[in-house]
């Protein structure tokens, strides 16, 4: 029997402010997991610190709530240790693109098969509304004592430059569409990003529900032939101009959907398998470490390069 989204819910009280965009994201994720019929025992959700970081308590699975900015490296260790797990790393814009941006970049270089979900409310919600890395300069959201002096970064372009092989953007209140994006991201083999525009009614009084809904549109609705897949050099030449243009579009119009998919790159798991032939069958988490408590190796044989034989 296929699972229902209720199978992924926990009984914890969801402690976000009324109307918070995180509810939509959580809902979309629950439904995506159910439609993919992922066994909660095989599901891993790693979250950083922030309002969004609480998500791990609301999802039934193997969950871990770590440090601010460090969901991605934790997820990296988990996925490498057991590549059979479905691994999702979630965090806020501050978490993923501020304090943890080095990991956001580096995961792309590995193309490890994990899904990165950024709850992007352009503010630091949990610390009461300071400017986040995606808040444009000179904007002044309500908790700021003065205008924001930093330019906003573009998560999609950063992901592209870093080597992510699946890049999408959704909108928190569009549960159905966001669910589809998350499903595709999870199904994609390689590092995928889903940036989810997330209204924060409590602190972001500029990028509100209305503000977003006046601007957002879906790439595949505007252009029914929209095909983000880049599989060859020719695709690259023909499509990258448009893809970049769409990734850069931000203002009166904000595109949503899948921007970029690259199936040509090998995943980190495949790379590991090339250098460690036993990796697939016996990855670090599923490997014997002893033979009835005795070591597996004889250092005098394994480290023969260090032995001087008479």
């Amino acid at each position: 029997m296929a699972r229902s989204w209720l199978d992924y819910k926990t009984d914890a009280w969801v402690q976000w402010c009324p109307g918070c965009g995180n509810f939509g994201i959580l809902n979309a994720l629950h439904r995506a997991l159910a439609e993919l019929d992922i066994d909660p025992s095989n599901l891993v959700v790693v979250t950083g610190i922030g309002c969004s970081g609480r998500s791990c308590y609301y999802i039934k699975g193997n969950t871990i709530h770590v440090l601010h900015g460090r969901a991605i490296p934790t997820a990296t260790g988990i996925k490498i240790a057991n590549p059979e797990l479905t691994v999702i790393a979630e965090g806020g814009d501050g978490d993923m693109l501020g304090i943890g941006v080095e990991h956001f970049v580096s995961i792309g270089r590995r193309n490890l098969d994990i899904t990165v979900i950024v709850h992007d409310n352009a503010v630091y919600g949990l610390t009461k509304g300071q400017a986040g890395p995606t808040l444009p300069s000179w904007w002044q959201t309500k908790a700021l004592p003065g205008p924001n002096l930093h330019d906003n970064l573009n998560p999609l372009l950063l992901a592209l430059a870093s080597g992510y092989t699946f890049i999408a953007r959704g909108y928190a209140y569009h549960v159905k569409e966001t669910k589809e994006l998350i499903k595709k991201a999870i199904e994609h083999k390689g590092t995928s990003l889903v940036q989810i525009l997330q209204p924060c009614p409590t602190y972001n009084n500029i990028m509100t529900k209305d503000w977003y809904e006046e601007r957002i549109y879906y790439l595949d609705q505007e252009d029914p032939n929209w095909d983000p897949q880049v599989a060859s050099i020719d695709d690259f030449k023909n499509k990258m101009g448009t893809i970049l243009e769409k990734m850069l579009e931000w203002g009166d119009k904000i595109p949503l959907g899948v921007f970029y998919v690259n199936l040509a790159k090998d995943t980190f798991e495949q790379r590991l398998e090339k250098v460690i032939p036993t990796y697939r069958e016996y990855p670090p988490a599923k490997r014997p470490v002893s033979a009835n408590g005795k070591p597996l190796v004889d250092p005098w044989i394994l480290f023969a390069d260090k032995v001087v034989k008479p």
Partner: protein
Amino acid sequence: MHGVSNSNIDLKFLIGGPQGGGIESAGQIALKTFVLKGYQVIGTREYQSNIMGAHSYFTIRVKPERPGAINFPVDAATVLDAESVLTHFTDVKKDGFMVYDSSTIKTKIKTIAPMPKPLKERLIKFFEERGMEPTAESAVKVAEENGVKTIGLPMRDLIRKVASETSAPLSRVSKTLNTIGLATTLYLLGVEPNWIEKAIATHFAAKKKVVDMNILAARIAIEYVDEHYGGPCCFLPEGPHLGKETMLATGNEIVAMGKVVGGLTMQTYYPITPASDEALFLEGHRNFELAPWAEEVLRLKKLGAVVLQTEDELSAIMSALGAAVAGARTSTSTSGPGFALMNEAISLAIMAEIPVVITVWQRGGPSTGLPTREGQQDLLHTLFSGHGDNPKIVIASGDHIEAYYDAIKALNWAEKYQTPVIHLVDKYLASTITSLHREDIDPLKATVERGKFVENPGKDYLRYKITEDGISPRAPMGKVPLTWTGLEHTEDGMPTEDPIVRDQMIAKRRRKFETIAREIPDSEKVVLHGDPDAKITLVSWGSTKPIILEAMKLLEKEGIKVNFLQLRLFYPFPVKPVLDVLTNAELVIDIEQNDLAQAAFLIRGYTGFTIEHFVKKLTGRALWDTEVAHAVKRIVETGEKEVVVSGGA
């Protein structure tokens, strides 16, 4: 001289030269020569934070049984470039010898670009005061005045001679420079040419052309020495371990070996001196064949471990923690600066009860400090790392053998007690090579334990189940839904700020450390070496151990009887055993390579006992047994509070 007793053999020599110039390789050949001949050795490398050109040197000591320390002056120095001559001309003892290159001897101090300015100034003043030219030649003269025999090799001619007898290009042949110098030294120390040739063949192994060229170079060197200086008076007898398989490994390598033997399945790291060689060695051996006894049990031939280079130390520790919650047996490895970045994660690992071993290879601080030099300055840093109440196991290894077994034990403890274990080691250990026999690192002496690791948790599994011993069963991810967290939590891992649960959880984690304190025997926490009734007690920790043990022998000869309290486990701390020894002594002397006397500070905090006398070395150079002995003697005789030693170029 065959048949003569080998028991008094104690040889010390150094090989100096520019970094990247093959000093390391020459040192290895020298060590192999003596190991083949049946001796035990240590060799330690002093080098600068530089890739090529700066001066570095390798010091070797040879004895029938494993030497515990190096010291100066040495019996011989191979110093083929002007900077080496000028750095080491006072390092050779009277009647010792110095092998140098006579073709570069006119070099002026001023023109030696890599030489550090303060040394240049000291040398220029030194020669000025003696009315001598500031050149390498003057250094050779001073050495001669001091009774050192100087052996000038016309390197350019000798290399041309090697070239004329091979078809290799001159650029390749000139790489035999160190072999020429080394062969000269070994020969004059009394090693027969056949042992030198055997060591060269062993060292370059499969590279036949390289072997042949280096053997030729050694022969040409020996011929020249015979002709111009006469050979050695007599040859060394064979050592007691002739014919024994011997491992030559650095501290970095021995820890890596311990980890593999100890069942490590994943190591993460971000490059830093002096730690990264450990991870690189691991990576070089990540695929392995199972030993016969393991193959028989598991019916498996091959396995592998993952070594992951991460983007920084935050990622190194976090991905190690991630792998651990997934069920891997993990460690990471770093030095002080990298460990500083791991701080927050240590705290997470304590709260979330995640097993991980962090091997900390200390170097000279603060800050970037002396990045390639010895330091024992991170005891307090590691012990008190992590915000909040922050108990974790901290163990310091005294030598290669301890480091090997500690690496295994640390992995066991981490998994058994689900806590970070900090394995404290240092640069001296990292870059010191020592000879080890099968009984020293016997794989079957080690056991691999995982504690309450449950492969098949039931449906009602609770990650943070409150138990009597404070340890909750640990299930890997991928079995049943479960939650790990850095927030205070209920037994099922859900966050809570409830005051009653908070107290219960704190008590549970405290009980865990009481279990640890109880289960780890005192003998693994602290070791008293020497006569328990001695009236003088030396206190130290880490890689000073074998050095102090050697110093004790020197002191004994001077009629000073001491014992030595070696601290091993800093948390949980063995308060009673330490206090018992200290209160029994009339004089306690603390020996450390940090300025704060960090261990003494801890002893005072833990036991209330105040140590009043200190020996310190802070230059980042290897500590000598002779320095320790002199310093202790001085304190015993004068009652001085502190003696700071500083030997070594």
